[in-house]
């Protein structure tokens, strides 16, 4: 799965996610990516998220929207992402990763899996990682 979130100079946020799904999946199986609120969500009033991981678990907790809910309650993006990923792991045993950008330009890349490749650019500074 691949994904992106961004905020532009006018303060508009957006998200995009795309995937080939699970290896050897049943024909017709659709995971979280295409489901609004699970594979991604964007709202200028709060921020934008894109998810990756075990799709059925992500759909059960509606992960992307859950992160924005935590941010609406006052959590910064990193804490909101970790809280939502912890909930998914505890509640349904699912692992995954998320990227987040808030409507004020704060960002986070968090994951409960062993790895997730990610990169970000802010103020012309590039950051990236895998572990």
């Amino acid at each position: 799965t691949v994904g992106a979130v961004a905020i532009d100079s006018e303060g508009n946020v957006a998200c995009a996610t795309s995937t080939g799904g699970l290896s050897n999946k049943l024909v017709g199986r659709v995971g979280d990516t295409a489901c609004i609120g699970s594979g991604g969500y964007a709202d200028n009033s709060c921020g934008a998220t894109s998810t990756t991981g075990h799709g059925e678990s992500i759909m059960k907790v509606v992960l992307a929207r859950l992160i924005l809910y935590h941010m609406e309650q006052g959590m910064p993006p990193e804490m909101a992402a970790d809280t939502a990923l912890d909930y998914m792991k505890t509640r349904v045993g699912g692992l995954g990763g998320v990227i987040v950008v808030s409507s004020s330009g704060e960002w986070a890349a968090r994951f409960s899996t062993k790895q997730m490749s990610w990169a970000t650019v802010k103020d012309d500074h590039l950051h990236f990682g895998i572990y």
Partner: protein
Amino acid sequence: MKPVIVVHGGAGRIFKEREEGCRAGVVRAALQGYSLLKQGGSALDAVEEAVRSMEDDPHFNAGCGSVLNEKGEVEMDAIIMDGKSLDSGAVSAVKCVANPIKLARLVMEKTKHILLTESGAHLFAQAMGIPETPGEKLITKRSLERWKKNLEPDSNPEEFQKDLG
């Protein structure tokens, strides 16, 4: 507002030999998206461009490089969302499209719907003039090998993917 972009290339296992390719791919995608933002482009354009870049990169499980279903075919899903209007577009189980994210954006902008699937998405792609990409062109040697390995009698694809997200 200063523009910001964040991208991910998936939370699956990344073996050592693929690390550099994945790292380079996410960096390229982030820089391409950020370049659009710096030129005054919209967040929507930036995320579409970043995802398109990774769909075209065989290191990632999307577009070219997608994993295969039980029949050995590529079936892809994609979504895009605009935080200004809450408009969203998505496609699922699409097969012969090089960039599902572009098709998802067309669903958002050219229809009153949010999600088109399988044959309906295929018809819509044709109506929008999206060129058909033969499924074989989206299949990489790595995804074919993974698919074959998962079909072996002693394989356990679910166990293999258990801790990978």
